[in-house]
């Protein structure tokens, strides 16, 4: 379905998502009209799912970021669904992922400082349903975060 031109557009676009269609077309050596048509097609086929603003939580005073890896009690039929539904209600949770592997789920949690983290952890994380074990990884630095696909 995708040809080399589509890939070229996506490569340039994911490297710089703020490009206008005109600038994107110029980088891909194509006319604005044909670039626009291809973007429309990529969006209507759901290849491009959207554009999200990236928020820097540090700039808003959230200096602590912790990755909590959990195993759940799988003897409960709805353990995953109930856990995820409850985790969504915690404002400080930025990401909820589920896995096949040694850990079942992972939450990315932010807090203003360690004291605030301790509070969130005790009152909102430990109270989530069906947790059997938790491991914490404290975020130190982001070395690469472009999330770009190797197209």
């Amino acid at each position: 379905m995708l040809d080399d031109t589509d890939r070229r557009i996506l490569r340039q676009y994911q490297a710089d998502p703020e490009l206008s269609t005109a600038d994107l077309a110029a980088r891909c050596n194509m006319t604005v009209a044909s670039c626009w048509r291809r973007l429309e097609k990529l969006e209507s086929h759901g290849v491009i799912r959207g554009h999200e603003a990236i928020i820097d939580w540090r700039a808003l005073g959230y200096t602590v970021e912790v990755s909590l890896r959990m195993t759940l009690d799988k003897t409960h039929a709805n353990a995953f669904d109930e856990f995820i539904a409850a985790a969504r209600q915690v404002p400080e949770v930025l990401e909820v992922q589920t896995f096949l592997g040694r850990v079942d789920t992972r939450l990315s949690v932010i807090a203003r400082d360690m004291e605030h983290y301790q509070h969130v952890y005790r009152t909102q994380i430990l109270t989530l349903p069906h947790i059997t074990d938790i491991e914490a990884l404290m975020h130190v630095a982001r070395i690469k975060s472009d999330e770009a696909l190797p197209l």
Partner: protein
Amino acid sequence: MIEIDAQDREILRQLQRDARMSSKALGARLGLSQPATWRRIKRLRDAGVIRGRRLVLDREKLGFGVTVFLGVKLATKGRTSLEDFERAVSAIPEVQSVEHVLGLYDYRLKVVARDIPDFERVLRRRIMTLPGAGEVEANVLLSDERLPGPI
């Protein structure tokens, strides 16, 4: 750190969903004029709260059927080995993100691959051969959800 009010929060929520929304459309939702909305967005950008934009692509439709999170422990620790490892791992196209963490592992990597055999190739040829790479734990991503966060 900047102070933000309820309207700034609403702007951030909307832009996280659709970063291309115009200040006119955004203002209409908030009951603000286009220039007032534009000034608020500019202030949030200048303060670094809005760090940029992410193009959201459908990994599966682009042929990347497998996403794996790897926890990597370094075999030899020391300043040089960290830098060598970080430089080498960031250069691997299939590695979408690299985080330096504290805890059970030293690094957390997000890797995309076409399928499991392709992942095995990346793991054996690229990850295991990294300078200083020691123990590696893999968890295959089943579901992934990003939440708006505490705004």
